[in-house]
């Protein structure tokens, strides 16, 4: 991450946060814009989960990592506590690698 990219991200984020408080008396945000922004965030996060689980650079990441993420998915659906989910994912991947799974 370069410092410039970091500063642009910070400035843009702050701008998104400040627009509402500054313009609330003059502008109201249409409902469809609001839901579109929320959906975009969800779509992006799911894509991040899938790509970071399956790929490394431009290639397949191997089986150990997606297996750990799959365990995490099952635990999330079973409403396991957050720290348990994260530790179980890492532990599964670590054990599989110990056993020689790439």
């Amino acid at each position: 991450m370069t410092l410039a990219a970091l500063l642009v991200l910070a400035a843009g984020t702050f701008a998104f946060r400040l627009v509402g408080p500054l313009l609330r008396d003059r502008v109201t945000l249409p409902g469809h814009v609001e839901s579109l922004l929320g959906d975009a965030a969800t779509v992006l996060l799911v894509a991040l989960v899938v790509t970071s689980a399956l790929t490394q650079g431009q290639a397949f990441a191997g089986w150990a990592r997606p297996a750990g993420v799959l365990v995490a998915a099952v635990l999330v659906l079973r409403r396991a506590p957050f720290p348990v989910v994260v530790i179980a994912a890492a532990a599964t991947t670590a054990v599989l690698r110990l056993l020689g799974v790439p």
Partner: protein
Amino acid sequence: MFGLTNAGPVFTVVVMRSTWRTLDRGTATDIGLVVVADVVVGLSFGAIATSGGLPLWQPVLMSLIVFAGGAQFAAVGAVLAGGSATAGMVAGLVLNARLLPFGFAVADVLGDRWPTRLVGAHVTTDESVAFALREDDHGRRRAVFWTCGLALFVAWNLAVLAGAALGGALRDTDVLGLDAAFPAVLLALVLPSLTRRTRRAALLGAGLAIAATPVLPPGLPVLVALAGLVLVRREPA
């Protein structure tokens, strides 16, 4: 703070002692639980960033000036995957665009004075907005928003600093499976918020991102996923 309004972690019961009269005990407890959950995420974020090879100042500075967990993970994830800083920045900005409607939602709480507006805007997160919107009374809204926002800011930044310091000491993170922790963190945050509508767009988008991975530079395939949103939206509901 992580991309979604998803404030329901149910683990250790922590009672946050608050002398602030306008906060009832139940709300204070809820805020305390969210702070604990965010500390765990902050520790993971710091550790993943530095163990992946980033210098300590990057996750620490980012947490102070961006202060948005989901975007921070997205930006650092893109860079650690070998992508460009620009791709990470764009992903972070798309994620944080959702803060725009949040700003309108809590504008009345921030008041008309510049110092409180600027500070209040910076501590506007999924969590502080969600807590504020639960309250009907103006005074309580304000108390809840500021308590949650400021507590999270302090907790998040200390947690990231601690995590980054620990992560830098790790040599081989693959042996510990830390590369699986990053998608697991995001998954835990995003899964509860998937609705029928977003599920289709998200799955289509993820498929497109995977298909684009061999041909696009790292960091960009994730942005291709947004096409899933456009394609699904065009269909009649």
